[in-house]
């Protein structure tokens, strides 16, 4: 597993590099993602995923904590894909298919991904 992950990391790191020419995300996008992440009527991600942010209130733990995201997802797009539809990796996952079921818009998903990718 470790070996596989390493190989994949190398492959995906190259992918990440190729898109690294893109400027760092603007702060307002991260702030928007943060608002969506913690808002009960929008993403409400905090209900299942803890995150080391002082605004986190009553975090749940149905899903993993948002930590070491760059190590876990060297390719940010794969993180985006996991948010978009977690049932691809696990059909029984409790995580709602945020993109596939249009729970958040594509722009909102981009914002959330930028926010959690800071952790």
């Amino acid at each position: 597993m470790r070996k596989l992950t390493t190989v994949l990391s190398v492959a995906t790191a190259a992918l990440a590099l190729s898109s690294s020419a893109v400027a760092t995300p603007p702060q307002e996008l991260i702030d928007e993602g943060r608002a969506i992440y913690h808002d009960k009527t929008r993403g409400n991600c905090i209900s299942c995923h803890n995150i080391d942010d002082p605004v986190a209130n009553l975090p749940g733990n149905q899903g993993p904590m948002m930590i070491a995201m760059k190590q876990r997802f060297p390719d940010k797009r794969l993180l985006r894909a996991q948010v978009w539809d977690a049932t691809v990796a696990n059909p029984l996952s409790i995580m709602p298919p945020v993109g596939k079921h249009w729970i958040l818009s594509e722009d909102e998903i981009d914002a959330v991904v930028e926010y959690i990718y800071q952790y």
Partner: protein
Amino acid sequence: MKMIALTLAASLMVPVAFAQEDTFEQVFNQQRALYGKGHAFTYAGQPYTTDHPEEIEAMAEPTRANAEALITSAEAMRQESESLGYEWRDPARFLKQARTALSENEYQRAMDLAARAKYQARMSIAQYESVNASWQQAVPE
């Protein structure tokens, strides 16, 4: 279009050829999940974008006739979902808003709302079908 898709795919090192077992639906969803909407890709040699069919319908000229047609087809999809007992909360809400927008001659707004309603209704029907084939996996032995 095809050219752009190929160049883009090459620059991102995503293989252009998809495994044979992947259906169009799977490839579409993978691409939309990775890139969001408006992204070009090819499937079986044909160029496509990651826009939902409903979103493409809403790109038609914003006229009363087009808005009415989209609302009508979205309502039909919602009713099918209802008949399966799998209707979601929002399609009826979006359709109500779409009809209001139509009555105010806000055709683009009406079409965008109807498109979202229709997409969600279609997904609820897809959910019904996939759950029929997968709920068994959740039962402990």
